[in-house]
Structures are given as C-alpha cells and as structure tokens.
C-alpha cells in the first residue's frame, strides 16, 4: 500500500498540474494544426485602415519594421489611405486589453513571524496560486489632423483608481522632414527594445530587471527607463526608420503627475524642480539574407532630491539634488524567423542616493561610502513559427560592481533571471485579438533574505488569455 505523505501528495499535485498543462498545450497545438486562419490583428489601427495586423506586428504586440515606421510616422501610412474618406465609418479608435489568468507565485526564504514575537521567526517558501485578472488598459490613439498624432492610455489595476499610462500629442514631420517631430506629455521613452511591447507578462518575467533596478538601500526616486516619463521629446528618423534619434527633456518626477516624486514613497512626496535627459540613437542595416539588424546606444542622465523643505510639516520643495545615470547599448538581431534582443546597461547613483542619506547630513555617510555602480544585460530570443505562434526565452542578470556601503556583501541585490514561454494567437482579427499565454519565470536575488542573508528565489507560472478588442 502506498504511503500518502506530504511529499507524495506534492508529487501527485505537481504531476497532475504538469499533465494538465501538457494536455492543454497539446490540445492547443492540435487545434493549431487543424484550424489555422488568416492573421489579422490589433484592432484600433487595423480597423482604421482595413489592414491585417501582420502589416505592423511580427506577433502582437512586437512591431515589425513597417510597424516601427508607421509608429515613427505618427500613425500614418503616408499615402491616400490616411485621408478620412478612405476610413471605415464604423471605425472606433479604442482598444481594451485585459488578461484573465491563472498564475502561481512562489518565493523562497520569506521571513515568517513568530506568533509569540519572542524570536525573529523563521524562513520558508511561500507559494500562492489561483485565478486572477490583470489590470485594464483602455487605449486610444491616432491622428487629430494630418501630422498631428496622439495617444491616451488610461490604465487601472484591480481595485485601483485609473492613472494615465500615457497621454501625449505629437507634431510630426515638421518642416516637411521626418527628422523633426515633437512630442509632449507622458510617454514611453524611445527605447527600441520596448518593455511595453514584449511577450512576457508574469509576476517575475513581466518586467526587465535592468529597466527598473535599484541597489538595496538606494533612495533614488527614479523608477527606471522602463517607466513612462513626463516631458518633451524631439525625435527623427529616415524614410524607412532604420536610422533614428530622440532627445527628451523630462521632469524628474518619474512620470507622476502633480510635480511630485511619489514613486519614492511617502517619505519623498515633495516637488522636484529638476529635469532629466534621455538620449537614444539607433541604426538599422541589412545583413545578407538574414534581415535588418539594429544597434543603438542610449543614456538617461537625471537628478533626484535627497531632502525637502517643509512647511507646516509638509514637504514642499526638493533640495540637495544628486545625480544618477543609466547608459548602455543594445542590439536587435534577426536571423530570419529568430530574433534576438541584447542589452547592456551600466548604472550609477550618487553616493548620497546610494546610501539614502540627505546631502545636508554628510556625517550620516558610512566610512568608505561610494556611489553604487552596477552592470546588467539580457539576451532575449523570439522564434516566430508563424504570426500566430511565438516562442520566447530570456536570460537576464544585474550584478553590482560597487556597493554604496563597503560593509555590504558584494553580491547583495544581484539578480539572475530566466524566462521561457510562448504565445499562441488563435484569433487575430481587425475586430479582436486573443493570445493564449504560457510562461515560466524565475529570478534569484543575491543575499536578500532577511534572517539568513542568503539568496532568495522567486518564481512565476502564468497561464492566461491576453485579449483586446
């Protein structure tokens, strides 16, 4: 008789989950082989122009070369089809996106309180799973007039209030040149490797660590180049958008309205009066029969306050600004149906930011303190079997090269992560898009457990339906 202990029960559950997932995958693949249909996609622009989504997307939401060109040209094709008389009268320029899902989140070495409060507690793995919803995006974009484009994207999480993920107006082709375009509002930084258009959505894999990394103990209010920012951008590109540039002047508020640095939490709600700069240059070139290869460099140079003046106890004006930067290079390499994104980033924060110390409290700096620096990067591959089935895999790391406080262990906060998954699009029509999304992601963070100061590992499994209409 088989013994039914916890271990065997766990094995049984995990085997069952594995079998169910496998069955789902096989079911999906068998349906795919039987019932392939033409690929049409992203509703808003597809509806507007009567084009298939494959005109602009390798697989929704990744843009292909023409999609990038269309976006750079202010959502205009540059032909007579831009004229309103060609557009479908029933065109409604709004897309809704939401992702019902089942997901599992697990973290090792979580501090568990001692109910008696007599000891610091213990460490153990915490795992949760169940059915869930993503936030809701309501996106509208298009042209207000010839060469005046716009985008408004109110977004909300479950139970949250709406916020503007982006809201901007852009004046395109100024002086009749694609090299001069001006955008004002809140927008995604002109990062060719776009975190808003990537294929991973899980709790761990749903963001690039490099785009949001901060060393342990750092008080920088900047949320990373993955955050949409508020400001003015001047950009340009050649006719086919192979050569592109952008320079942005941004308020040092990490995209938050009201001129506050609320991203830093309640400790720093006051006003920042400084401006940041983001520069991006990239170039595309053809390599034999492989396709367009793109390379680029970028840099974000900013400042953030280290303390605030107060009035009646309320913080009103940021002071003691200190600098930080994120610089790097990237490449997007096409080998026919396989495309590989690579990124390198070097980050550095001022010593006061790194140690979370106000400039007017220089005595607070620990002996030997220095500005923290780190290096990171990722390799992310996509294989487009066809526009309705895309596999993805990523390996990403961020390693500290200098800690702000020499007393800290060198690998504190290091991140090593990988993600694999695929997206299958059974429906990609001008009316709606539906993706069956499967993803596993894992990240190890160096020495971050509170009690034992050892590495922690977080894992995510996500099975969901990402749809928009």
């Amino acid at each position, binding site marked *: 008789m088989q013994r039914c202990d916890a271990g065997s029960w766990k094995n049984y559950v995990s085997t069952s989950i594995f079998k169910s997932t496998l069955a789902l995958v096989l079911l999906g693949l068998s349906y795919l082989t039987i019932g392939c249909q033409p690929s049409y996609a992203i509703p808003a622009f597809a509806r507007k122009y009567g084009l298939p989504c494959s*005109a602009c997307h*390798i697989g929704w939401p990744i843009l292909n*070369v023409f999609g990038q060109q269309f976006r750079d040209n202010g959502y205009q094709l540059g032909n007579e089809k831009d004229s309103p008389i060609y557009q479908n009268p029933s065109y409604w320029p709004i897309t809704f996106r939401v992702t019902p899902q089942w997901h599992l989140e697990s973290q090792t070495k979580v501090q568990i309180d001692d109910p008696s409060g007599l000891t610091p507690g213990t460490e153990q793995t915490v795992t949760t799973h169940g059915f869930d919803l993503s936030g809701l995006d309501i996106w509208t974009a298009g042209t207000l007039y010839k060469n005046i484009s716009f985008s408004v994207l109110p977004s909300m999480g479950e139970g949250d209030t709406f916020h503007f993920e982006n809201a901007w107006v852009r004046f395109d082709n100024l002086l009749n040149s694609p090299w001069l375009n001006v955008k004002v509002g809140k927008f995604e930084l002109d990062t060719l490797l776009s975190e808003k258009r990537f294929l991973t959505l899980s709790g761990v894999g749903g963001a690039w660590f490099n785009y949001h990394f901060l060393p342990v103990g750092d008080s920088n209010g900047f949320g990373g180049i993955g955050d949409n920012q508020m400001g003015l951008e001047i950009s340009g590109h050649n006719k086919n958008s192979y050569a592109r540039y952008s320079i942005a002047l941004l308020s040092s508020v990490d995209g938050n309205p009201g001129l506050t640095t609320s991203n830093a939490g309640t400790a720093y709600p006051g006003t920042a009066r400084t401006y940041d700069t983001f520069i991006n240059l990239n170039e595309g070139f053809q390599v034999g029969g*492989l*396709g367009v290869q793109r390379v680029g460099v970028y840099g974000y140079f900013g400042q953030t306050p280290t303390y605030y003046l107060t009035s009646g106890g309320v913080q009103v004006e940021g002071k003691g600004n200190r600098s930080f930067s994120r610089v790097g290079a990237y490449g997007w390499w096409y080998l*026919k*149906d396989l495309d590989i994104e690579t990124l390198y980033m070097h980050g550095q924060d001022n010593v006061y930011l790194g140690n979370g110390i106000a400039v007017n409290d220089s005595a607070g700096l620990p002996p030997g303190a220095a500005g923290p620096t780190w290096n990171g990067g990722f390799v992310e591959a996509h294989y487009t079997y066809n526009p309705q089935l895309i596999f993805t895999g990523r390996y990403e790391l961020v*390693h500290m090269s200098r800690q702000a406080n020499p007393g800290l262990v060198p690998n504190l906060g290091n991140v090593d992560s*990988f993600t694999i998954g695929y997206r299958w699009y059974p429906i990609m029509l001008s009316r709606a898009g539906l993706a069956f999304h499967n993803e596993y992601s894992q990240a190890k963070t160096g020495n971050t457990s509170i009690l034992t100061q050892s590495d922690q590992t977080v894992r995510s499994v996500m099975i969901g339906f990402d749809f928009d209409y």
Partner: protein
Amino acid sequence: MGMFVLKWAQVRIARAWISDAKTARIWISCLLVLFLSVEGFSRTRDTGAASFSIDLDKPFNEVLAIVDEVARSGSIKGTFEYRGDEQLGGAQFAEKSSLFPAWTEPGKVFYKVRTKALSPSHFLNSNDVGTVAVRYVVQERGPNSTRLFIDAVYIENARHHGHPSDGYVETCEFGEIGKLLKDREQLQKLAASGQPLSPGQESTSLSQERQEEIKAEAEMTRPADNAKPKISKPKGSKSKDSTPPEPPQVAEVDSAKLGDLQRAIAEQKSALAADHAALDRLEAQARQMRSSEFVRVKSDRAELKVLPYSHARVVEALKKGQEVTVLAKSMYWYQVRSEDGQEGWISHALLEVRP
C-alpha cells in the same frame, strides 16, 4: 569598447555558469532544444515548389501572347493589401526577378512584380512590407499543346522571409489568362465566319490592339472561298480566259435558284462546322486522356470545392475510392473533374494516385 564589452560578458557568463550552474545549464539546454526544433520546423515549411501548372490545347504562340498581356496588366489578381480591395495594383512587368531561382528548363519566362506591398493577403504567414512577384512559364508541348506554370511569392524587405502563395493568386492569374484565351477564341471564330463584330463582342477583355491583331490574323487565314459567296454564272454566258471575270450580273441570276443554293451552302457549312467542332472536342478529350492524371479519393470525407480554399463553397462531397481526373495542379490543391462531370478543387492530401 567592443572588446571590453565582450570580455565583460564572457566573465559574467562564466561566473553565472559557475555560481548557478544548474540554472544556467537548464536555461541554455532549453534554448538549444527550442532552437534546434524550430529550425527543423522551419526547414519543412516553405517548400517553394512549382505551385500551378496546366496543359492547354492551344498553340504556344497564342498562349504566349496572352500571358505576355497578363504579365503587363499592372495588377496582380487574387491578393490585396486593404480590406475591400480585390487586387494588388501598381505591378510592373519584368523579364527577370531575383525573388525566384533562375529557370533552367525550356520555356519562355515572364514576371510581374509589385514592390512595397503591405502584408498582402493569400501568402502564407504574410507579414511586414515587401515585394510580390508572379512568375509565368510557357512551355511548348506540341503543335497545339502548351504547358503553363504560374508561381507567386512574397518576400519581406526586412527579414527576407519568403511566403509562398496559398494557391489563390495563381488560380486567379490563370483565371485572367483563361478569360482572355476564351475571348480570343470567340473573336477568331467570329472573324473567321466573316460576320461583323457587334459592339458588345468587340468590347471584350482583350485590348483594342490585340483585337485588331486577331482580326487581321483571321483575315489572312480565311479561306478564299469563304471570302465572298461564290455565285455560279448562268448558262451560256461568255467567258474569256485571258481576261478577269466580269462582275456577276445579278440581274441575270434566277433569284429563286440562287436562294436555294445559298441555303444549301449554309446548311452544308453548318453541318461541316458541327463536324469540325465535334472532331475538335474528341481530339481535345483524347489529348486530355493522354496527358491527364487519374487519381482517387483516399479520405472518407473529401469535398470538391469551387476554389482552392478550405472555406470555399462545396461543389459536392466525394466518396472514398471515387476516381477523379486531374485538370490542373497548384501547390496544395488539384483541380479535378469527378465521374459525374463536376469540376472543382480538392486538397491533394485527400487524393492518392490510382494504382
């Protein structure tokens, strides 16, 4: 700088391998398996085989002239960019195209090319912007037999990825050629019979120049006795061998007898034409019997469709073992005639060669 980055990456990867060997190995193994398997898939997907071929019981020069005209028509049938369009305009005639490998077999080759096509329909997994090319190969098979190949492909500008047509483009292009051939045949028959063309008949899909050419050809080849009705001279009339015959004296002809003769001639001509037509049909059938491929349905459920599409209207359901005659072939679909004379398209996967 590049060397520094490379060295840094090497060091980092090596450290990752050592410090977290298990994770890194799993990750790299997964990537390798993924890459190898998908590479395997990709090799089996795009075969690039000749997609449409048909034998026509028409002289080589006649088919060549029509194909040349279609290749210069400026539009590609059976594909479109924007919903609501029916064809892809702006195509150019070309004698060469790098989108196809060089044609080394006998035959005259033409191309029709459309650049900057935006994800054109009816090309498998069509994506991005690129070039559509249609290749026509006309091969002489005999004095009154010509083989025609049509292939269409779409190549992306950025990734150079080739997308073969799903067969519809070739079918529609051939539809255009077939229509012109039919129009030409009609014009030839009318011109040969000496009847003037009515305005409706003249406004066929053939260009005005082509119509004039066909009429001229027909005039040249028309038998002399067909040129004018021969009217016999009345008995006793004088004739001089050395002098050209005098114009017939209509007034001298017995109008009743003339009428009878003309009716008899017309009846004989009609009977002769019917015999010729029957002979032509029999010859065509014989040629088709010689060149046709007989196959039979191997699937329990097989549908004969109007067009080479999964979603096309069904002409009739065929039974397993039922024999059909292949009339034309595209990459995935065969045009066939069933035993009861119904013609349509059927997926080649549902057929097997008759032993």
